């Protein structure tokens, strides 16, 4: 019983920590792209990496101010969105998908390559760039605090707090935008581009705005992540994270403002709970060592997540917040 409570507490910490903020921000960006505009961005992690490395390189390598680094990261994501969008957004949706997935993988390999290591730190990455930010915390970041049954360092708490504030602000932004006529045009583009063109809207411009907005939000996610871990390493930005972010989005419900946030909290909770819970069960001998060893847990928890997603899609295809009528329209 104690182990179970402990697993709850650990999972709760994970669900509220900066990793959850990271996935929530990735998914909010994807929600703008995919949920509202129908753009298939399979390389959201590239935006996150540019955001994170924007800070890391600016501060550690170029010795710039932390906030200038934030600005550099945002500019880098905007440039990436424009570069990806210019050639592909006039074409069918598939081409953006191809371009983004290739870019995400290519950029990561470029950042970790030996030739880039003078700037990006190569496979070792960069560190010691978040001091300016952590020192802003109103409490002593060196101390540990007990929150909801687990221990948090002051720094962790500060990053998570600012991260969730950022999530709240961006949710507000998305909500404001999507209830406006601008958001209506985006949703219409998701349904049928040509119909929107025939009504006198510049579809290309709207898709570009959407790509930039979602990309910048993803970039902010990357910033939260590197500040949280205190280090930026290209291999943290595997493209699998993009698909986890999609899982977050589907879980919470696409085209819903709070869908990605709730999705991220639940996904992180489930993964961590499965991890801690299974380890506890193995240690206690409830699950025999021959069936499942502690080293397999890391993999098996994703199997459980996959299983859960499958069940969700069967029984609640619209996600937690989605509108079932909307999803059912596709089946007609």
């Amino acid at each position, binding site marked *: 019983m104690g182990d179970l409570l402990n697993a709850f507490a650990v999972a709760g910490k994970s669900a509220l920590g900066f990793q959850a903020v990271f996935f929530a921000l990735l998914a909010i960006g994807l929600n703008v792209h995919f949920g509202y505009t129908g753009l298939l961005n399979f390389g959201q992690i590239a935006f996150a990496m540019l955001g994170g490395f924007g800070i890391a390189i600016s501060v550690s390598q170029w010795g710039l101010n932390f906030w200038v680094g934030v600005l550099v990261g945002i500019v880098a994501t905007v440039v990436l969105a424009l570069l990806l969008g210019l050639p592909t957004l006039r074409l069918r949706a598939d081409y953006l998908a191809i371009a983004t997935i290739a870019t995400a993988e290519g950029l990561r390999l470029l950042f970790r390559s030996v030739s880039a290591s003078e700037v990006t730190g190569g496979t070792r990455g960069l560190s010691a760039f978040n001091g300016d930010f952590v020192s802003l915390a109103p409490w002593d970041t060196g101390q540990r605090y007990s929150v909801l049954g687990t221990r948090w360092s002051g720094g962790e708490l500060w990053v998570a707090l600012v991260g969730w504030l950022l999530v709240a602000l961006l949710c507000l932004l998305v909500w404001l935008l999507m209830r406006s006529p*601008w958001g*209506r045009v985006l949703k219409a583009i998701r349904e049928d581009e040509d119909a929107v*063109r*025939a*009504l*006198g809207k510049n579809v290309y411009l709207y898709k570009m705005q959407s790509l930039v907005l979602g990309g910048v939000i993803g970039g902010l996610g990357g910033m939260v992540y590197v500040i949280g871990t205190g280090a930026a390493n290209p291999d943290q930005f595997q493209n699998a994270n993009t698909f986890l972010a999609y899982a977050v989005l589907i879980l919470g419900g696409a085209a819903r403002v709070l869908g990605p946030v709730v999705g991220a909290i639940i996904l992180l909770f489930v993964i961590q709970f499965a991890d801690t819970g299974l380890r506890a069960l193995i240690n206690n001998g409830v699950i025999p060592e021959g069936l499942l060893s502690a080293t397999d847990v890391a993999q098996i928890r994703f199997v459980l997540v996959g299983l859960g997603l499958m069940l969700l899609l069967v029984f609640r295809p619209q996600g937690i917040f989605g509108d079932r009528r909307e999803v059912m329209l596709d089946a007609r």
Partner: protein
Amino acid sequence: MPAENTPTGATAASLHKGAAPAGRAPQRLAQAALRDIPWEVGVAKPDPAIVVENVTRTFGGLTAVSVDHLEVQRGGITGLIGPNGAGKTTLFNLLTGFDQPNTGTWAFDGKSLGKLAPHRVARLGVVRTFQLTKALSRLTVLENMLLGAQGQRGESFLRALVPGIWRSQEKANTAKAMDLLRRFKLDAKKDEFAGTLSGGQRKLLEMARALMSDPKVVMLDEPMAGVNPALTQSLLGHVKDLREEGMTVIFVEHDMDVVRDISDWVVVMAAGRVIAEGPPESISQNQAVVDAYLGAHHDAPLTVEEEDRVLAQAEAAIAQEEHGGGEVLGTDGTTGRTER
């Protein structure tokens, strides 16, 4: 353009009509204006809204559209008919910027539309509907309608963030949309997803949505296709109303009764060319049109001599195939190439 020098009373009359009290019998001014026009391909109209000049569009070796000269009378309903594959929809796509021609120019109200993007054409007042109805399924009927309104302040990214800037305009647009929805008897459905509407209702919605932009020219691609007869009558009424409001209507249709009923002028296309134009009653007598629809040669049975000739050709081909391999390969190659 010869028509520019001869403005008749039609322009002035159609302008006045907008102000005239409703409820009078429809005047069909365009029909009157077109009465004395010769029934010739490429004939000049008294007051053309759209003028097409030497437009061609080819897809590989196939010439989908090749129109030398075509004028569309303002304020009238012009029916565009022709057998399947005649290039009607391609011509629509070219006129609305959805496709670019290989050669040629066309103008709307004297402004050249060449190389304009679709949304720019729409902003000039030329809106279209689609053969396969494009209702925006996961938007409500009212949202569909509001999307049609032009010049919305709230459609710019930054201004969208300040509702005060666009709220009053949105209110006005909503009132206008509700008026149109009532006219098209869709007002009860305003909060339903457009995807839940029936096929005919979607056609109505698409037409109503196009009207939200106060168009000057409405291009309807098969507005009656797949619509039940009761709804067809109401759709026809709506199309006639557009003419009463002074809009120019161009529509593609296969149902000849419909075409005869509402068009002031009919343009017949076949194999990418305009083969005939004239008032609806002229069309069924036109030999070129009959040939295009029913075929000029294949309606008569083969004569005995023809049969013999075909048989002889076939036998010769078989005989050739049975002799010398290299020869045969050569022939196969050539036939293959010509077919492609």
